[in-house]
């Protein structure tokens, strides 16, 4: 129970969303017990925490169904948001069940049809949903072989399978198809002794590259996202929004808004909305509402942010401690003390949050762009009063998630409005609402004090992260005297942040890897040692050494101490079970401070890779997305007022920024690890280190905007 209790601490909190660490999840899934604390949504409409105990089903029928036409439905509570599990999970099922990949149809995230799942985040689909899915398919196959043996009068050992047809090894004429055995129904037989899943050597489909299964739907515009769903009689809602976080509605006058034909105005406590069948008419009327607010905002803005965060930091907790820091200090010739910063960063998915709620026959169906359909089901059940079994969440394709769609307050809004009006209601946020209600990656500070002896061995490592989150705060290097402290429990510090914060692709790890790998580079430079050689000297983790050597070889790395003037940087790290190492080449315009990343080489050890094509695409996406938080992405704000409202004030990576990308996945027969996040974590450090190598200027603050680069150039020693 200890692990479960500990897990609750990670999920509870005003604006937090579920996120968790590897060791917790192993225990939780293994034990089949999961305690979920519902979270207060960004509108603060939910006052209580409720507890739900749900777990993955044990019946393999919950994961798959063989239809009469021979196709197989694969049911998963996971959702597809571009990360490609629609393809890789289908590969796993097809391989274990011995059917063609093309026969598998994915059914994803629908709470009525799919097995319970806590949500799609943390690069966990392959690592943690993969094993039970494969086990289910293996059991189904064993049962089918049993049934076929009876029907054909041949022992199971004398049977073989070819694409869903069970055939006698002796007499190819004797055969029976899965579909004939199941007639499209649930299989009514179970095994006491669960069969083994296949060995790596037996894989035929896993390990092969497949293009996105949903490609055709997406290039034709046929793929349905939530805002594309239509229900007869549906109304679009446009909701009154406060000017800032912390503003409380004092009075509201909706009389002008009510004058337009066909509008429906809803006033339910904090939820004031105008509904119309035409979204632009709803918006026009909404904009005529007059409202007054009371303000109670935190005295913080994007200028005084880091002082504020440090001043308000709660007491730290020791996450890891080895040796004795005082002894370490005495074993050090060169001491490096640094402070690293990163600003608030938005998810900025191309699809804004959307939900369509429809009530029929005492049941509510909500289509929602959410990474957490089952937690959303629980929240909506509690808020609307519909029993859990009468709440169905259907997540269509998601237009990006990155952690931002683990929060689902738009679905709650749609459900409330549907309940109040009795009409189907679509809530699809505008871009400004998306920036306002985003659960930003928390701004954070990292303080590191480290030291090396004369030989370049790191003997001291004193690491303090404030609000970044623990993920990625491990030392990774072999240091005898080390301590890691966490202040503020990552994004789960609602008492400090002036608005909602949450999990952002590889939460915590982008900040921590930026700090750690920058610090390593500073020490390497002080030791006048090549930064790869310096790392190898201080590493004992063989898999980290493996990716570093691989990336150095593939990039054609020629050793040199920084700054070499070449503009080459290196960084490595660990995330979601995978090891990654990057080498980047940059060009710095010393007049404007603008940085162009010209080439990125990345090596990744993710264990056995189910779909190399899909994994490669994720690595490329991580590298391109990582350019943004490294170079430009920063939320501007004053108190609770978000100044960043649109894409002209929040710059995403553009085509002209994109480097030449070379990815290398190590081929290993080890358990598959995460692939959606690891390759993004090194981007801040690898660029910072390359800037230093090019110019001798060290950047300590993400994003490394032209102004900050110019400042660093001015201040360089």
């Amino acid at each position: 129970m200890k692990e479960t209790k500990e897990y609750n601490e990670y999920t509870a909190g005003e604006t937090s969303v579920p996120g968790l660490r590897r060791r917790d999840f192993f225990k939780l899934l293994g034990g089949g017990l999961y305690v979920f604390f519902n979270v207060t949504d960004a509108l603060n409409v939910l006052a209580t925490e409720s507890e739900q105990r749900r777990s993955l089903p044990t019946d393999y029928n919950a994961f798959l169904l063989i239809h009469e036409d021979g196709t197989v439905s694969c049911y998963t509570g996971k959702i597809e948001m571009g990360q490609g599990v629609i393809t890789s999970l289908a590969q796993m099922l097809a391989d274990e069940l011995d059917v063609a990949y093309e026969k598998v149809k994915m059914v994803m995230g629908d709470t009525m049809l799919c097995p319970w799942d806590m949500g799609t985040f943390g690069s966990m689909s392959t690592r943690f949903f993969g094993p039970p899915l494969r086990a289910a398919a293996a059991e189904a196959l064993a049962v089918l072989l049993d049934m076929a043996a009876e029907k054909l009068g041949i022992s199971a050992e004398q049977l073989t399978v070819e694409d869903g047809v069970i055939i006698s090894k002796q007499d190819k004429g004797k055969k029976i198809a899965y579909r004939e055995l199941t007639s499209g129904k649930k299989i009514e037989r179970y095994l006491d002794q669960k069969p083994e899943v296949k060995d790596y050597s037996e894989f035929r489909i896993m390990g092969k590259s497949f293009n996105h299964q949903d490609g055709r739907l997406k290039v034709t515009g046929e793929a349905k996202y939530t805002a594309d769903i239509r229900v007869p009689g549906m109304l679009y809602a446009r909701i009154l929004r406060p000017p800032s976080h912390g503003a409380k509605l004092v009075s509201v006058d909706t009389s002008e808004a009510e004058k337009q034909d066909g509008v429906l105005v809803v006033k339910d406590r904090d939820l004031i909305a105008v509904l119309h069948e035409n979204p632009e008419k709803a918006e026009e009327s909404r904009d005529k509402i007059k409202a007054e607010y009371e303000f109670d905002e935190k005295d913080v803005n994007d200028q005084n942010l880091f002082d504020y965060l440090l001043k308000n930091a709660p007491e730290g907790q020791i996450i890891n401690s080895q040796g004795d820091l005082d002894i370490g200090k005495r074993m050090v010739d060169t001491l490096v003390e640094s402070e690293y910063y990163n600003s608030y960063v938005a998810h900025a998915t191309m699809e804004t949050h959307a939900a369509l709620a429809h009530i029929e026959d005492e049941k509510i169906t909500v289509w929602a762009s959410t990474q957490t359909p089952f937690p959303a089901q629980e929240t909506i059940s509690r808020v609307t009063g519909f029993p859990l079994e009468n709440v169905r969440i259907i997540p269509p394709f998601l237009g990006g998630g990155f952690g931002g769609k683990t929060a689902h307050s738009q679905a709650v809004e749609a459900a409330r409005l549907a309940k109040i009006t009795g009409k189907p209601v679509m809530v699809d946020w505008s871009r400004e609402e998306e920036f306002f209600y985003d659960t930003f990656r928390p701004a954070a500070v990292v303080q590191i004090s480290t030291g090396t002896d004369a030989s370049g061995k790191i003997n001291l490592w004193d690491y303090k992260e404030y609000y970044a989150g623990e993920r990625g705060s491990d030392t990774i290097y072999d240091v005898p005297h080390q301590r890691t402290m966490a202040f503020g429990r990552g994004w789960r510090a609602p008492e400090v942040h002036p608005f909602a914060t949450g999990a952002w692709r590889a939460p915590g790890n982008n900040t921590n890897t930026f700090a750690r790998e920058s610090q390593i580079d500073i020490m390497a430079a002080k030791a006048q040692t090549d930064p790869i050689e310096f790392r190898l000297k201080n590493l004992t983790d063989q898999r980290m050494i493996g990716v570093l050597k691989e990336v150095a070889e593939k990039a054609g790395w020629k050793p040199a101490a920084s700054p070499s003037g070449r503009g080459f940087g290196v960084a490595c790290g660990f995330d979601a079970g995978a090891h990654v190492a990057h080498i980047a080449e940059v060009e710095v315009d010393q007049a404007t401070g603008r940085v162009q990343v010209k080439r990125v080489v990345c090596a990744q050890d993710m264990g056995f890779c189910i779909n190399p094509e899909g994994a490669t695409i994720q690595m490329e996406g991580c590298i391109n997305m990582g350019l943004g938080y490294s170079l430009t992405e920063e939320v501007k704000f004053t108190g609770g007022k978000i100044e960043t409202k649109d894409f002209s004030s929040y710059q995403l990576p553009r085509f002209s920024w994109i480097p030449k990308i070379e990815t290398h996945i190590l081929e290993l027969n080890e358990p598959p690890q995460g692939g959606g996040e690891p390759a993004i974590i090194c981007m801040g450090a690898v660029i910072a280190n390359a800037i230093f190598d090019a110019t001798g200027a060290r950047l300590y603050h993400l994003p490394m905007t032209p102004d900050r680069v110019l400042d660093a150039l001015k201040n360089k020693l």
Partner: protein
Amino acid sequence: MEDKIQFELNGKPVEIPMDEHQTLLWALRTYFNLTGTKYGCGQGDCGACTVILNGEAIRSCQVGMNEVSGAKVITIEGLASNGELHTLQKAFMEHDALQCGFCTPGMIMNAYGLLLKNPDLTKEEIIAGMEDNFCRCGAHNRIIDAVEAAAKEMKSVETR
């Protein structure tokens, strides 16, 4: 008198009641139920709503319906003909030039608009021409490759 706007949509004549406040984006998405054209920002920044208006790639969220009267509009749904995907669509599939797919229709329509104007695009011109279409998943390299491959393919078909 009932005011209507008439125009050609994906090769067919259509009409819609006149509403001076309506944008082409929302007319497409709600009245015509062509949901392949996406709302991404409503300010012309991101390009998710790109369609072809009289041979030009434009941001449909920035075009009022009064500007559409008598015009020819092509959306992503109008690009394939008789179930045969357009070369650009095939190239996006073959290059896996998408992840979440939300920006994809706008990317393809913008590329289509570029190629309508200049079938001889260099890689640099493709990059410059696609610059204002945003992809959050980071499929940029593949999108460029797909457009470049499609341009070559379209040219070779023309000269064959």
